[in-house]
């Protein structure tokens, strides 16, 4: 398989073994994700396969429970606010950074990489203690601020990547033809870098929607997000309703991932 003609039999065997190993690892990567799907549709409250009888009872339980519905609502509100804030700040910054004469490149690169490197629990505790001084713990605003700090770097990176293929002469042409800077941006630059902006927004949404550690520290029962609700559910007593929640989150990830993949493909064309 996939080998030139001069290979020896032992090399063929080796290659087959490597292939088999890689396939096994890929199954190890993907199988645990999909094992939760049949379990969430099982009628029994056990976590064993094969499923004896299928039912939607855990989904009914999930959608009928105000605590889960409240958690979804909180997650959605926080993620949407984070997305708007992170995409605006990140896109603006990317426009500045991409200019040849940007003066503080090293500073901003360090600032942007830091949220990816600093352990999340430190961000969580720091935010909890610092925002607590201003009464922002146990509020959605506090959580949005912390999530935006985590999400913006991804927006900057995706928009900067798109801007590197954007011909800035287009903006210049628009300006020389009498467009105001803002209409040049909204009518010429933005439509051209839209794939990067949307990718960044999807990243920001996914990061906020999935984030659990900062949310654990920054929220009380009222602002509890979906991942926090799942976390405390598993901690108490894992039950199949959590499988339904996990399956829905998995579905959301796949949808976002597909949108992102389609957009990247279109950009390549």
């Amino acid at each position: 398989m996939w080998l030139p003609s001069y290979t020896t039999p032992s090399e063929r065997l080796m290659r087959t073994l490597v292939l088999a190993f890689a396939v096994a690892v890929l199954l190890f990567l993907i199988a645990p994700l999909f094992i939760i799907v049949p379990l969430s549709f099982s009628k029994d409250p056990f976590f064993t396969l094969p499923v004896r009888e299928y039912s939607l009872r855990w989904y009914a339980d999930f959608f009928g429970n105000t605590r889960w519905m409240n958690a979804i609502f909180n997650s959605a509100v926080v993620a949407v606010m984070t997305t708007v804030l992170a995409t605006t700040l990140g896109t603006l910054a990317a426009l500045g950074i991409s200019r040849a004469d940007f003066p503080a490149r090293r500073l901003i690169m360090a600032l942007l990489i830091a949220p990816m490197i600093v352990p999340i629990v430190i961000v969580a505790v720091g935010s909890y203690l610092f925002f607590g001084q201003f009464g922002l713990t146990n509020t959605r605003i506090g959580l949005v601020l912390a999530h935006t700090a985590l999400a913006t770097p991804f927006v900057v990176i995706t928009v900067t990547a798109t801007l590197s293929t954007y011909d800035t002469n287009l903006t210049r042409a628009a300006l020389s033809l009498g467009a105001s800077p803002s209409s040049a941006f909204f009518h010429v630059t933005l439509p051209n870098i839209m794939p990067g902006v949307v990718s960044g927004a999807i990243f920001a949404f996914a990061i906020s929607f999935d984030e659990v550690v900062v949310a654990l520290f920054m929220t009380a029962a009222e602002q509890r997000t979906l991942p926090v609700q799942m976390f405390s559910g598993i901690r108490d007593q894992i039950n199949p309703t959590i499988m339904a929640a996990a399956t829905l989150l998995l579905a959301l990830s796949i949808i976002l991932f597909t949108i992102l993949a389609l957009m990247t493909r279109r950009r390549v064309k």
Partner: protein
Amino acid sequence: MTAVEVDRINVFMAVRRAQRPARRAALSLALPLIVFLAIAFVAPILYLLVTAVGNPETREVLPQTLRALESWDGISTLDEPVYAAFANDLKVAKDKSTAALLGKRLNYEISGMRSRVLAAARMVEKLDTGPYKEKFLELNKDWDSRETWEIIKRNGASFTPYYMLTALDLQQANGSIKRVQGDQAIFLDVLARTLFVAGLVTLFTLILGYPVAYVLTIAPKAIAGFMMLMVLLPLWTSLLVRTTAWVVLLQSDGIINDVLTALHLTSERLQLIFTRTGTVIAMTHIQLPFTILPIYSVMRSIPATQLRAARSLGAPPSSAFWRIYAPQTLPGVVAGCLMTFILSLGYYITPALVGGPRDQMVSNFISVYINRDLNWGLAAALGVVLLVVTLAIYLLFLRLVGADKIKLG
């Protein structure tokens, strides 16, 4: 300086001046983000650093006592003025309900101090006038102990090394710093455990991930694309979903045990959930894509012709691989491994849900001190230790591979 040089400098300055508006415009676009990150990200971390050394309790609750203690040499017996000042401070503290705060803080350094302070505060509330000294001694003869007053005086300072020392299993006693003995010494253990688990996870992701990265480079395009999807999809799935999956899989009556017993690999069901083994398996699964992607991106840039050349010059397959191919993949291996190691150090959710009490990492202890013990100073100090270790390894990363290797996949 010659005239030519002066001209050159003038021209250079003029060019810089001319560029200034453009530079300013570029900066002003990024300024909102810089300001935002300074407030919402940098300030909280700085605040954490300050909390790790902050020492406000004694200063706020006992201002008069500290003033009275200023001239104390630390040896002589204390007299009525100090006790009177202490009594006054405690009366105020009782009104403002801050005595418990002080008691809790001093209790970190002398056990039993919490109840002593509270009892003293209750006592002085009923006293109108002195002398106070004998009343305090009547209540508890330790109010005469040199150690008590030494610690109160020491904690009059705005900053304390106490939390940082505790986080490193050290303590201050009689002016020298000593290692904490026995069951009090837990934090170096936790740090070592964190490093060990992170190292183990890194090693496993490398062993599992290297062949996958290699196969990704040699597979035909369509198949490689599909395989890549299998690497990227887990990365995109919520960490909590992946951890949930492992919680379910690792149950004693769960699927892994079902399979193992069905294959007669074990006679009895294994305890996997709430163990180190389970934690390492789940973390390896979660970190695998982070190790695979950098290795893959380096492997992709190695021309296939090199291996062919080595073979045609007579190298046997194994030495062609180990001497030609493997050394060139090293930058990717280092980047992937350091990335996984750094991220593994900060794990919280997975050890909390999959691990047992002996598998909790630094992050979990930080959370316990914030949420359960309300000892923010110690939580912050542990955070500083974790941050310093992480940054040290990150700087190593920069030295070895450079920041541009950080990719989103």
